């Protein structure tokens, strides 16, 4: 039973990769400025010294080539972790991910067990190109998996599972949580959280909030507020994995509460809330006592000025208002 240490979300990600690289020499990393520089967010600080230039590879600025090389290495039985300096820069690799990685097993029988990870999300005043949530770009792509951890434990456990997964996994790290979210975790101890299983963050019986990533904390805060001020109990489900989706967990909760609010940080139109709504309508329609609602960012790019970004992002008051509307329905 190893000692516990306060571990940030960022450290949990670093530990998952370092420990897995120590355990399994098939695991290696490639990306921009991850070696000598230690990564834009210093996540890979010290990795070059410990694992050497063959396993911590500084690449040119070429996201498509980074993902491509990861796919080829995976074909050879290696377990590559490709870092996108910001997840927004996954866009130039879109073709490589959607057409090569995702379809490889289906077409050829040879899988592409790679992890593509990087910082996503807003709140840090980084403007339209360093704040995006990109899950919806890939939501309709069969063959991919998508993960969005909210806690330090899940960040470590899901990343470990993602590295071991035989299929391509997009791993979205919310940069706002990197240093703000902390948790006591056993030092050097393996944590594996299976992909595709949601977590009930908070139990409740009057309303279900389904969320993931950065929005977990605002949702929990709203739930808290409602418990204190309205005496109603809100169940908060943290999806953890976006694709594949743990529909069973969502449906079970909705059948209990009869009310569903979906909260995500990405824009509203065409966002992931749609898929959740569709599946709940298909599988729990008769249990719904109120319309399924969603609280999301606005249908605009992510603006840069604090006043604009705060208005753009879903806030606790928005969630509370929508939740109360549902409870009163």
């Amino acid at each position: 039973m190893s000692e516990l240490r306060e571990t940030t979300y960022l450290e949990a990600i670093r530990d998952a990769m370092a420990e897995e690289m120590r355990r399994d020499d098939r695991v290696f990393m490639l990306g921009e400025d991850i070696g000598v520089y230690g990564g834009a967010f210093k996540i890979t600080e010290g990795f070059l010294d410990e694992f050497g230039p063959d396993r911590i590879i500084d690449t040119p600025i070429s996201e498509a080539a980074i993902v491509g090389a990861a796919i080829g290495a995976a074909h050879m039985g290696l377990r590559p972790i490709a870092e996108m300096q910001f997840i927004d820069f996954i866009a130039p690799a879109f073709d490589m991910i959607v057409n090569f990685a995702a379809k490889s097993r289906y077409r050829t029988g040879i899988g592409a067990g790679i992890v593509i990870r990087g910082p996503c999300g807003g709140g840090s005043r980084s403007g339209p190109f360093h704040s995006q949530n990109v899950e919806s770009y890939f939501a309709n792509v069969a063959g991919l998996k998508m993960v969005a951890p909210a806690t330090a434990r899940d960040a470590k456990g899901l990343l470990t599972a993602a590295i071991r997964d035989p299929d391509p996994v997009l791993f979205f790290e919310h940069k706002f949580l990197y240093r703000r979210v902390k948790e006591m975790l056993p030092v050097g101890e393996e944590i594996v959280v299976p992909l595709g299983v949601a977590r009930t963050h908070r139990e409740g019986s009057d309303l279900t909030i389904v969320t993931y990533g950065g929005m977990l904390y605002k949702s929990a805060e709203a739930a808290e507020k409602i418990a204190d001020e309205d005496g109603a109990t809100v169940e908060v489900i943290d999806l953890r994995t976006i694709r594949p989706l743990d529909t069973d967990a969502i449906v079970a909760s909705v059948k209990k509460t009869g009310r569903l609010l979906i909260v995500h940080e990405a824009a509203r139109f065409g966002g992931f809330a749609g898929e959740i709504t569709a599946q709940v309508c298909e599988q729990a329609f008769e249990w719904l006592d109120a319309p399924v609602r969603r609280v999301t960012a606005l249908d605009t790019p992510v603006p840069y000025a604090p006043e604009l970004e705060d208005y753009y992002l879903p806030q606790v008051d928005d969630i509370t208002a929508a939740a109360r509307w549902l409870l009163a329905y």
Partner: protein
Amino acid sequence: MGISSRFAQEHHPVQESTLSDLSRTDLQSILRYMLLTRGLEERLETLFKQGQIVGGLYRSLGQEGTAVASAWALGDGDWLAPSIRDMGALFVRGLDVRDMLRQYTARGTSLCVGKDSTTHFTVPELGLLGPISPLGTQLCVLNGVALAFKQRSQPNVCMTYQGEGASRTGASHEGFSLAAALDLPIVVWLEHNRWSFGTQSHKESAVADWLDTARMYGVPAESVDGNDVLAVYSASRTAVDRARRGDGMTILVAETYRMLGHAQHDAQKNAPPVELEEWRTRDPIARCEAELRDLGTTDEGLETIRDEVSLELTEAVDDVLSEPPPEGEDALTRVYDASELDPSVPWTRGPVSGYGDRTTHVVVVS
């Protein structure tokens, strides 16, 4: 699974000639593979006209020499990544002509079990990495194979092919640039066949000498007569040895010509007759036969090769046409790898029960 075991028997290692010039037997084999390629493509064209081919058919008439003679320079454990026009190289690496027939006729027995066509298969047992349609991407993926060789300090090399049209894509540039930066053991053939789909390449680019496009990456580059199998082989040989020594990537420009349209639907009517005429005189098969005659191979000898090839093709076509198409439900298989899945994970159970129609599948695993 079935595939790999099949190859376990079939795969016949390519002998490595140690000298950079070829023995007569080598040259006869090279001729044989070129004839096999051209012969198979002619059969496929017939099948196409008979409506037996599913989708498009892409010929390599006039370019067989580049594919075959370059692949001849590879050894056991090396990987090859063909474009859709490099079928010949695959046979050199041990692929059965039946496998190409199965691909084009969309058999359930095909390497892609009917899910994809042409050379779009990947066969680790043979060291073959197929392309996908979006051009330029394949080199980026092959880099990863070479990276694995390097990490395991395994003395193997990769060879791939890219058209001059494809070399205009961003993916191609990123692939070259990363391969050079990481000093990967790769040989890239830039196939300058004067065409890109329906357009002459000089109409789509300002490149005067395609060798310049190779030079920019800071690696050795050479221009080669792509229709001269001896030249193609020795350039390949040098580049392969360099890569095997650990001295990194080489880019070879094949000067050649696409003698037919992009695919069956393209009559290539904009091709200048003089150009076609000129290149017809440079046919790689005719030139290879001439070489062999000089080396003492008799007309009977050449006849025998042609007859063997023709017999092999007839048998292959008969075999494959009698093979079954895939079953509809197979469309649902191998989206994800089932082998490592935890049954306690809900989505792995597959179809959502309820409505009982097949459109309610959420996620499908094999």
